[in-house]
């Protein structure tokens, strides 16, 4: 009897599989003369450890596309609507490659966006390049993505090392402005792709600026105690401490610095953990006067920034972050390119993307001017520095640099005032 029941379940499984197989094979491959909708493929980590960031990227895209479609779609294509197709990369390079293949050859998308992680973007963009399908990367920052001589890859984000370059510029600017010479720097970074990329950038730009690196201290990202690192820094007394950390280690570093009352001229973070809302919860007042770099802040002084963020908050219940802003902006960059291309020919779309010059509209919330260079890299990706300040008893990120994008009425506090605040 048991065997019989087994057999039934087995049959059921096989039936389900067969149905799935048939359904899977019959999808895609339709084409019609008139353009009614424009399919855009999006590769994002929708499951796995990066799923939350994949989700907010999806929501930002959806909001932009709803707006574009509601405003009449792509007019040069007879008001064709944009249809978004999402593919889950699971944060895995091999899956990203398979999904890029599928989006291009099965779904026949006009272009692709994604893929959040640099590790997935690198091989996935190679697939797109092979099929000559444009690939817009709103977020991934690893330098090499736009340094491979590819023609169909466009990046709306900054390169990793640009952040380091801006941090160094900021230090020099502050040193001059406040008359506090900066000579020595300590670098503390988590030891994965991200931190290793950051240290390359720091070394390059600090050397150019004539600053001395007195300490280069990598640590494993999931460290449970960073006291040895902090004590090393304390002993060397560097003028500036630069950090590249995930959230738990960023908080641990901050609290350990507080405990040992380490007092340089400035603490500077590199987004990531420092930009995570959890960071403020676990550090409390300890993080006050720390600096952090990013491309967008809710308080940044740019047109449309407040309105779009407000709308997003209404729709999804939480504010945007820099990645969401980039994803949102990317859809408008694509819309603009499609309007000018006036066709779904990949070559026409590629050409239109390459000729992008956006200086008005909602993309202003991200950058006043969006243009791509020969390599498909956005020129002058906007980077800003914020300082953590206690306002009405609550920690906030206050944009302070560059001056014209700063929160009106706020200036950087430099040097670090010390721990007895």
């Amino acid at each position, binding site marked *: 009897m048991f065997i019989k029941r087994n057999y039934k379940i087995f049959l059921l*499984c096989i039936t389900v599989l067969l149905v*799935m197989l048939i359904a899977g094979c019959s999808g895609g491959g339709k084409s019609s003369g008139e353009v009614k909708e424009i399919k855009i493929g999006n590769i994002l980590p929708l499951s796995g450890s990066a799923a939350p960031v994949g989700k907010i990227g999806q929501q930002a895209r959806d909001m932009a596309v709803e707006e574009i479609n509601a405003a009449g779609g792509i007019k040069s294509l007879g008001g064709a609507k944009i249809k978004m197709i999402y593919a*889950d990369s699971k944060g*895995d390079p091999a899956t990203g*490659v398979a999904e890029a293949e599928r989006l291009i*050859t*099965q779904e026949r998308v006009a272009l692709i966006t994604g893929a959040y992680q640099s590790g997935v973007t690198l091989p996935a963009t*190679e697939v797109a390049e092979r099929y000559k399908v444009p690939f817009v990367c709103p977020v991934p920052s690893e330098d090499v993505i736009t340094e491979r001589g590819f023609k169909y890859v466009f990046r709306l984000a900054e390169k990793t090392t640009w952040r380091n370059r801006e941090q160094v510029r900021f230090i020099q600017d502050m040193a001059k402005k406040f008359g506090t010479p900066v000579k020595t720097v300590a670098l503390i970074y988590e*030891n*994965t792709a991200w931190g290793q990329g950051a240290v390359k950038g720091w070394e390059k730009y600090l050397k150019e600026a004539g600053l001395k690196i007195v300490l280069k201290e990598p640590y494993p990202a999931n460290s449970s105690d960073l006291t040895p690192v902090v004590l090393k820094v304390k002993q060397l007394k560097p003028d500036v401490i630069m950090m590249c950390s995930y959230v738990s280690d960023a908080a641990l570093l901050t609290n350990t610095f507080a405990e040992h009352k380490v007092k340089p001229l400035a603490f500077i973070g590199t987004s990531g953990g420092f930009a995570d809302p959890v960071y403020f919860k676990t550090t409390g007042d300890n993080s006050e006067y720390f600096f952090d770099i990013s491309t967008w802040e809710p308080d940044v002084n740019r047109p449309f920034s407040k309105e779009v963020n407000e709308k997003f908050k209404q729709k999804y219940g939480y504010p945007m972050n820099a990645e969401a802003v980039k994803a949102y902006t990317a859809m408008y960059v694509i819309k603009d390119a499609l309007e000018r291309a006036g066709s779904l020919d990949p070559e026409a779309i590629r050409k239109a993307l390459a000729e992008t010059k956006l200086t008005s509209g909602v993309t202003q919330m991200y950058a006043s001017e969006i243009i791509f260079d020969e390599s498909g890299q956005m020129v002058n990706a906007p980077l800003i520095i914020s300082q953590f300040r206690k306002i009405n008893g609550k920690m906030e990120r206050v944009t302070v640099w560059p001056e014209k994008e700063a929160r009106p009425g706020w200036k950087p506090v430099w040097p670090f005032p010390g721990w007895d605040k």
Partner: protein
Amino acid sequence: MRNFITPRYYLPALMIFILLLIPLFISSPYILHIMAMVLFWAYLASAWNIVGGFAGQLSLGHGVYVAAGAYVSSLLFANIGLSPWFGMIIGGLVAALLGVIVGYPTLRLRGAYYALATVGFAEGFRVILINTTKIGSWHTGGAEGFLVPLLGDAPQHMQFMSKVPYYYLALVLLLIIVGFSFWLDRSKLGYYLTAIREDEDAALALGINTARAKLIAAALSAFFTGVGGVYYAQLIRYLEPNAIAGAIMSNQIVFLAIVGGRGTVLGPVIGGIFLTIIGEMTRILFDQVMGLHLFLYGIIVVLFVIFKPRGLIELVEKPYEKLVKMLNGRRVEGAS
């Protein structure tokens, strides 16, 4: 001669023939890519099966060998232009050497030591890959990963623009490993391994050098896995330590082999084919709800494990035997 036209010979031949013909009927590069990946996973599961199945020694760190093969061949390719075809051999040998390094001290012990050592070794190897950005003047990319140079159509360097050669290459690899498993299952070493798996004391008492037999199995398994790594490197062309040497890769290999039926010639192949297809199907068909595909995949796997604990092979074996008998019967009838 007459023996060769029995179903026992022509049925497998027919299956191989069908697999060979598939690219003629499927033009979608995506489907071919997925099928190549399916065969590749079946290959890895079969390679693991040599030590994990036949010898019964649970290795939970086969990602190391995939990574070793992939990195060794790709580094040689990128730096001194050595074709990955030769890299396959060297990568496989390096992987085998690593297999011996892990196995030599631990395979003489009983219990969980070997399994623990493989986990620890794999994790250590991953951390080394993440933290090493250069070997001499050769860049390995560290945690940022290593990009294998794209040459376009370069058959002499195992790179093709079309997916068809990748498919055939995976098929050939799979046929080799299945042939090898088939031979191993009936060889003296195979009997040694079975004896060790069933009762190590009895095997020792019979005069089998159990440590040596296990070590050979571990090295062979690592060799084939390393060769697979070279294939992966040329198909995906991007090596990321976490994806290739991490626990996900190691566990997936074990998982496919065990669900398929460890210790059998075709179990891991069936496991690899079934589960990879199910994983791909669920991901594409249930993409509206985040994570639903993994949930469904999990449920399907749990159902199989509950009802077919010895592996999917059980499901295939009986109908296959029946079919063989039926065809045999018909032939005899026709002859008479």
